[in-house]
Each structure stands twice: as C-alpha cells, then as structure tokens.
C-alpha cells in the first residue's frame, strides 16, 4: 500500500487522478494537467509535495558533516536563512540524490531530499554521521506545500503568520525564514517565483484550503514535471543517478572545488573525471519535427549516440522538448529515434522557459 499524504482525502474529493510516485499515492492532475501548467506560468498554483523527505541536521559538527557529505559547500551559507542546491555523491562520484540544504542557525541545518530515494538517503546520511557530533533527524510529522507562479507570493502572503509575512515577501531566492514550526523558503521546481513551505499537518491542511479558496490552483505531479522540464531542472532517477556524476549531468556548477582541501565524498573521483574531460554532457533538445520525445529514446549526433533522459510536450512552447545525455562534443542538430522514425532535433542550452518567458529560439 502506498503512503498517503495528509491531503489525500482532499485530492480525491477534488477529483484528482491519483498515481503511485516513489511509494506515495499522489495527485497526477485534477482534470487538466496542461491548464495547471499554464496556471503556474501565468498566475499561481499549489502543489502537495509532502512526499518529499525533510531531514534536520543539528549539533556542533553540523557544518563539518555537511561539508563532507555534500559536493556543494555549506560554508557558503555565511548567514542563517541561506540555502543552496547540492548533490550528495557516492565515492565514485555518482549522485545518490540532489537536495536543498538550508542553514537555519549556527549548528542547525534543514535538508530536503527526494521521496523515491528516502531510504537510501537516510541510510547514507546516518552512516556518514558516525564520524561527527551531529544528530540526523527525519521530520516525518511535517508536510510540505509548494506555491508557485508569478502571483504566488502576493496571493499566499496573507495566509502566512503576520510575523513572517514581510520577511517572506522580501527574502531573496534560496533563502528561508522560520517561526515555530513554520518554515518558508523562496525555492521551487517550476522556473517561477514562489515558496516551498514546511508546516505541521493541521496548519498545512488549513493552508491548503485557504490557498485554494484564495484562487491558487491545485496542481498535480504531471504539471510539476512539465514545468521543471521547461525550466531545465534535472529529475533524480531520470536525468541523473548513482551511475552518473554531476559533471555529465549539467550540474558541474553545483560542485564547490574550492577550497581544494575540502575532501567531500566523491571528490577524488570527480577530480579524475574533470582532468580526463567528461565523456558526456546533459543538454536540451527541441524537436523540429512533429512527435513527442520520451525518456530512453536514442539520440544520434555527429559525435556518437546519446539518449533522452527526460522528454515530453512543452505546453508553453507547444512542441516537444527534452533533456538528453550526449557525447561531450556534440553540437548543432541531431536525430531522435522515435519509434520507427528519425526525427530532427536541435541541441540547445536549458532552461527552455523561466519566469513565463521562452528563453530558447522557438
């Protein structure tokens, strides 16, 4: 039996089509995935992301532990309230998961990891913690909502506690603020402005109801996937996994090489790969022909073959777009094998869409 979020009954009542995602019974859409997508690009949508795993890391070694655990460097979080995106690597430089880590206080960090990787993440984080004076604690009693879109913060601000409201409205991307169990971060997975909010279950249910009543549209995982694909944001398990490194996943920018003495897990393997030059890269594809690119389809380039890692239909661009892993020196045009046909596609640099605007030559 898949797990159910605290909003399960509301999703069913709203007529959502439910699907199993990472062991959770989640809403795919509430009628029209495409309309939900447009709502987030043009106005505001709310997503139940309570399946995500929230882990708090506290203790005097918290910073040292996270500097060992993560490929990005939490020493960049010079002030409480700052957050950053990072990969958590194995010794071979493969990606165990991607995550966001927030510094809440001097020795108090919050890490949000993926649902499908929860068990392996917690096992790994606990194992690495053995050498440090830290407490790694999953916060399963909380739930998480994402409110996203150009009107998201304005529409949702009245629903926040008064003490947080102004701070939350003024906070920069990738920062967070807290009050009691309320945690509000200016982050998301859609390419639009918005908040990701962690709260207790009672507060979260009330917030969901109030947001819907305020005209913020409930959105399912279907729209979440097309929004993140347009935004060029990688999906763990599809665009990268334990067998691929950040350097072949367009995530090299998240690896903090300096200072050279910081021996994060996977560093040695990554340095070797960087020296040799990575053999592959993750790029964006725009289909010139009709059809829809899908995960796993073969990509033929002048430099050799690759594969689509995430593909689909872009509601904003009204054509098929994809992320694909191809040989490192592939450029220009290529062909994607869609069933029996070779379809023309163009290699582009994601993101495709950000803040409602198409950023590639459509």
């Amino acid at each position, binding site marked *: 039996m898949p797990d159910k979020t605290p909003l399960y009954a509301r999703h069913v009542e709203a007529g959502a*089509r439910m699907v199993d995602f990472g062991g959770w019974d989640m809403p*795919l*859409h509430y009628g*029209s*995935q*495409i309309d939900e997508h447009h709502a987030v690009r043009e106005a505001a949508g709310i997503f139940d992301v309570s399946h995500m795993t929230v882990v708090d890391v506290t203790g005097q070694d918290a910073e040292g532990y996270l500097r060992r655990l993560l490929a990005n460097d939490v020493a960049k979080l010079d002030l409480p309230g700052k957050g950053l995106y990072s990969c958590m690597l194995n010794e071979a430089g493969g990606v165990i998961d991607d995550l966001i880590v927030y510094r809440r206080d001097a020795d108090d960090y919050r890490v949000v990891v993926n649902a499908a990787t929860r068990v392996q993440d917690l096992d790994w984080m606990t194992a690495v913690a053995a050498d440090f004076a830290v407490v790694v604690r999953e916060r399963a009693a909380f739930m998480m909502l994402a409110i996203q879109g150009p009107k998201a913060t304005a529409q949702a601000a009245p629903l926040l506690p008064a003490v947080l409201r102004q701070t939350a409205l003024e906070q920069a991307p990738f920062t967070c603020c807290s009050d009691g169990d309320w945690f509000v971060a200016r982050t998301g997975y859609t390419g639009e402005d918005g908040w990701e909010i962690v709260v207790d279950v009672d507060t979260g249910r009330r917030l969901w109801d109030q947001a819907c009543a305020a005209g913020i549209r409930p959105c399912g995982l*279907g729209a979440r996937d*097309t929004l993140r694909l347009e935004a060029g944001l990688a999906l763990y398990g599809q665009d990268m996994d334990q067998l691929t490194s950040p350097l072949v996943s367009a995530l090299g920018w998240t690896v903090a090489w300096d200072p050279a003495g910081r021996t994060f897990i996977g560093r040695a393997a990554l340095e070797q790969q960087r020296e040799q030059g990575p053999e592959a890269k993750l790029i964006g594809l725009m289909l010139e022909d*009709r*059809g*829809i690119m*899908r995960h796993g389809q073969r990509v033929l380039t002048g430099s050799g073959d690759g594969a689509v890692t995430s593909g*689909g*239909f872009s509601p904003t661009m009204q054509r*098929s777009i994809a992320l694909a892993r191809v040989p490192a020196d592939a450029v220009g045009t290529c062909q994607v094998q869609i*069933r029996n046909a070779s379809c023309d596609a163009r290699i582009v640099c994601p993101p495709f869409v950000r803040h409602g605007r198409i950023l590639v030559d459509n």
Partner: protein
Amino acid sequence: MSEVPGDRKYSREHEWVRLQDDGLVMIGLTDHAQEALGELVYVEQAEDGATLAKGDACIVVESVKAASDVYAPIGGVLAEVNDALTDEPELVNQSPYEEGWLVRIEPSDPVELDELMDADAYSQFLAESAG
C-alpha cells in the same frame, strides 16, 4: 461514469466503431479511453490507403503521459484520417465520439462488425473491468 452512446459498437481495446451511410466505418476512442490516456498532445496517423488487418497498430496517440498504439478494431483499407487532429489532438479528449474521431476504414469483412460489443455490453465490460 463515462459516456457510452448507443449508436455504435465497441472493442475491448476501448475503441468505438460506427458504420456510416457511405459504407465506410468511422473509428475513434471511447470516453473511457481518452480519460485513461490523459490529455493528447500528438496523434501520429497511418498513411491513407494502408491495408489493415484486425488488430494491426494503425495510429499512435501521445498524451502528456505516454505514447499508446491504437489497434484496428476491424480489418479494411484506410480511407480517411481526421486531419483536424494534426493541430488539435485535444479534440479526442473534448469530443471523443464526434469531432475527435480518428480514421475511416473501408471494411474488408463486415462480419467483423458483428463481433464487437454493443453499448450495453461495453458498459457491462467497463463495469467489470473497474470492479
């Protein structure tokens, strides 16, 4: 409960089939099928004039979720494809029994039509599948 009009026949693959006055058979997806597929974003049609045996894959419909084959519910020669679906694949979702029809076929063996379910039998089939 999805809609099942009484003026046509149905396959176990959730296609409808309607014999028209000109002797051609119009084929489409049922309301249940379009609902299960999700919003269509692309329809890849077969070539006009193709000869199809019952059960041949003749069309690919791509929804926001996935690509699915549509199998010919009867054999025949493909006489016409619904060109409107090229630019508006969503017609299949919006009007599965009328504007969202897929193809018209000249049947090779009209007896195959008799082997399909009527609306009552299809409704029963849907109820049992859901059960």
